[in-house]
């Protein structure tokens, strides 16, 4: 019975409070039924087996519960899509040119994500969580590039571009960023690995835009050329909002996985057409690999915690 309930606990991808209530109710049911069956003459192992057979396969049972609870209300869908819509507005109205708006928005999103996380991890908060990781992930990525660049300069006996203090600061910051992102990521996967690629949705597009900005000569120098792509960028974020909305309205895990597996690469290709003018480049290929890895890796991370071994819970 313990093994069955552990398997079921791993497969029920709902919020912790709801999952706890479901397991408590089923455990109570099993105990009472097993007791009655034993009173009727069966030995304990036969009684337990009969009760578990009547309950059905954990996979099926978890699927039924998921179908009852997973489909988000329109209010939850709106909340989940809101971060993408806000960024669509940022680009539609060229507000990114005043960088403070972007920073304030990301900090505000992080605040919402932290409050929601502590308030019971409502399912709508994962897109907010994804945006709150943009600053640390992008900052960490830039720090890695800067440290690499500085090391390269030192190897070639040239003065590094930044002060030693800056490099020390970045080197100290990197492990903090790594540990924080890793813990948040693990927490998301523990809740439901399907939320991990959903949360990571904006990252490939932010990375694409920053690379595009770099190719135009930087944010300040390339402002005019960057602004010409703002319409396309706003549309990309609208695409993210639509993908998110469809995800949350689906009650089937397989359908949710399909939306992410198709939606993310499609949007990456759209982005490449907007920024590079062609989908055929090494950068786009790397982004597609990254996008698919973001979908697939959480699944395998989740599968490692399957008490019976084997495949991830879909």
């Amino acid at each position, binding site marked *: 019975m313990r093994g069955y309930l552990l398997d079921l606990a791993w497969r029920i991808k709902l919020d912790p409070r709801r999952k706890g209530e479901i397991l408590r109710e089923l455990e*109570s*049911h099993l105990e009472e039924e097993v007791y009655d069956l034993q009173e009727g003459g069966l030995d304990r192992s036969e009684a337990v087996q009969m009760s578990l057979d009547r309950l059905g396969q954990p996979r099926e049972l978890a699927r039924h519960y998921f179908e009852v609870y997973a489909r988000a209300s329109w209010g939850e869908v709106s909340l989940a899509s809101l971060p993408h819509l806000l960024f669509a507005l940022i680009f539609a109205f060229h507000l990114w040119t005043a960088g403070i708006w972007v920073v304030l928005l990301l900090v505000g999103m992080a605040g919402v994500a932290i409050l929601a996380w502590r308030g019971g991890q409502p399912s709508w908060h994962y897109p907010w969580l994804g945006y709150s990781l943009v600053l640390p992930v992008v900052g960490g990525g830039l720090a890695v590039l800067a440290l690499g660049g500085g090391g390269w300069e030192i190897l070639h006996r040239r003065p590094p571009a930044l002060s030693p203090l800056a490099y020390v600061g970045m080197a100290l910051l990197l492990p903090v960023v790594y540990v924080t992102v890793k813990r948040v990521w693990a927490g998301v996967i523990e809740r439901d690995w399907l939320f991990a690629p959903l949360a990571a949705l904006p990252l490939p597009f932010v990375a694409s835009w920053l690379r595009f900005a770099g190719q135009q000569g930087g944010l300040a120098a390339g402002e005019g050329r960057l602004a010409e792509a703002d319409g396309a960028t706003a549309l990309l974020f609208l695409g993210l909002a639509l993908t998110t909305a469809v995800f949350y309205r689906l009650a089937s895990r397989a359908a949710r996985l399909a939306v992410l597996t198709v939606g993310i690469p499609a949007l990456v290709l759209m982005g490449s057409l907007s920024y590079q003018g062609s989908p055929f480049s090494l950068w786009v290929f790397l982004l597609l690999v990254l996008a698919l890895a973001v979908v697939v890796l959480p699944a395998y991370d989740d599968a490692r915690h399957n008490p019976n071994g084997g495949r991830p819970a879909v």
Partner: protein
Amino acid sequence: MYRRELLKGSTETLLLALLARETMYGYQIVKEMERRSSGYFSFKEGTLYPALHRLEREGLVQGEWREAAGGQFRRYYTITPRGLEALNSRESEWRRFSRAVNLVVGPEPTGG
């Protein structure tokens, strides 16, 4: 197989009908269903509990934890006023449906 298909469409109505009589918990519902149907309905609990949760999510029943004798906790379900309305509507529909089936399946009424 046919019985299973019939039961699939009637599960929630049967649950509402039982809960309209008294507040019950899951295992009690299983036993009562078997008793009242003289063994015809034997619920798979894997279907029962998600159905109860669906009814609760739709506001047709309300669940609450209560401590039973012996210290164990059980989740009891009570039908709500909305649930009673839904039950009345489904019962009317069932009566019309079963009457129509009987008219089609039964012998042709003779004239005169």
